[in-house]
């Protein structure tokens, strides 16, 4: 099985995530898109680990999972705090900071 296919798949996933953050307005969905980007990077790392014949990429993938989990904790805490105040998770409502 050619590694290139996996790299292309991960690029597609990364692009979906990157576009998702830009076009979706719900903080939770934006957050899910970011997680998709991280997982796309993981897939690329593991695919390249196979291609390069060393374990570095696999090790990175494990660490990224831990970082992603930590990010979930922080992100949901912030989104929850805002949701409890405003009763909405829409990013457009959060627009007090202006010049």
């Amino acid at each position, binding site marked *: 099985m050619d590694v290139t296919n996996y*790299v292309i798949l*991960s690029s597609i996933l*990364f692009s979906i*995530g*990157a576009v998702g*953050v830009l076009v979706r307005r719900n*903080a939770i969905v*934006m*957050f899910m898109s*970011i997680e998709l*980007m*991280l997982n*796309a*990077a993981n897939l*690329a*790392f593991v*695919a*390249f*680990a*196979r*291609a*390069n*014949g*060393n*374990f*570095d*990429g696999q*090790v*990175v993938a494990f*660490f*990224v999972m831990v*970082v992603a989990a*930590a*990010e979930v904790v*922080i*992100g949901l*805490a*912030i*989104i929850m*705090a*805002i949701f*409890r*105040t*405003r009763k909405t998770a829409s*990013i457009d409502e*959060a*627009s*007090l*900071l202006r*010049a």
Partner: protein
Amino acid sequence: MMIPTQVFLQPSIDWFVISPFTILLGAGVVSLLIETFAKRSMRRPLQLLLVFTSLVASLAMTAMLFGTQTLTAGEAVAIDGPGIALQAIIALVAIIGAAGLAENKVDPSGDAFAARASAIPGSSDERAFTQAGWYSTEIWTLFLFAVGGMQLFVVANDLLTMFIALEVMSLPLYLMAGMARRRRLLSQEAALKYFVLGAYSSAFFLFGAALVYGATGGINFDDIAFAIPTRPQMSTLLVTGVVLILVGMLFKVGSAPFHQWTPDVYQGAPTTLTAFMAAGVKVAAFGAMMRLVYSAFGSLIWDWRPILWAVTLITMFVGVFVALVQSDIKRMLAYSSIAHAGFIMVGLISGTNAGIISILFYLTAYAFTTLGIFLLVSLIRDASGEASGIESWRGLASKSPITALSITFLMLALAGFPLTSGFIAKFSIFASAIQAEQTPLVLLAILASAIAVVFYLRIVVLMYFRRSESDEVAVAIPSNFTIIALVVSILMTLILGVYPQPLFDLLAQSPLFIR
């Protein structure tokens, strides 16, 4: 292809040379235990004791390590001249920043952070917690992890360590940005924006790292630098990866066009935190970026230089032009920090040892000036909290001559007037770039800094030559924490402007990145 069976070699770890940041991360864990087990009334004194002790210990360790050049922890950490210098700067910035964060006399109800961040703004819970005089002492745990992350960030020698350090530095700051005592909706909004954009940019960094790993077969900077000339067929993948990594780094330093978070976060976060964050993150992120582009991608200089050249130009001019039209002092300083990021990148582009030394000097000078100016901003208040609208600063000189004088001095330093550290810093950066034959860029940078003088001096004019319309705005009398922090930052700005040679000599002794 089969993955060959590898013998696992246990990496040797030299605990002594990595102690500056392990002390801080360890103190972070202890700080968490204090939060869990100490009585509420004991938490603040214990946390302050722990924070200042561990920061001073970390600073002392960087002094003892001066001159060390070694790789440790399986070559994941590179302790070298610039790395140690940056760690020392970060420790100093953190000590002054912690003094600012510890301030609890300026606001009648406590320090700059919410009595309890989880209480809904405006609710009866919030009032009860505030009246009970509670403090969010969790900020000290977050603070210690953030400083530890910064110190690891500047010595990280592979892409994985750098990514982890980036996250350890950023995640606590996202939270702290949302914990302000006053104007909590603004603060929470700043935290959300900082978090979403920060996580977005670190995803770019990570995907770029994956592509670089694919192109070079390694994540260690030495492996990457070694593999780049041997694999010309991979250059497209490699350059794409480098660009994505740079996007992640440029976001952290606040370069245009990745700067949109800066004004919002600087304005919404508690001002004492903004002081620490503006100084510390800039030092750490530029330190890591220098190591990345010189150490790992040094041989790609002809690929990244044009990209950074364009980014530098945009950054400087977006910074100065948008700062001209700001009506909020914190937003103005945020755009000024964007312009300064551009000036520092002029040094990055020169790609020489002189460039490295001048960037280190610039970061030191800029960090102290920024800390000072934001701490002064936090003192100017009206009944609802800080009065950060520029118009409310009218006639400040008649209300508190010493505050106005300090602000003027620091504004002149930011503008780069002689006899301040800002002048020497700009001069050395521009001189190193001219030596590296970047004269057109330097001329544009000088033009940008000339424009920047306008908005710095506008504040000075407002304070001295306009009459105040109301007595609502007053300068709060801070506790000794802030006074000491201010005296140190102003003195450093003055000393580095009048007698900068010792610091240059110190930095020049070992300007090389090892890998």
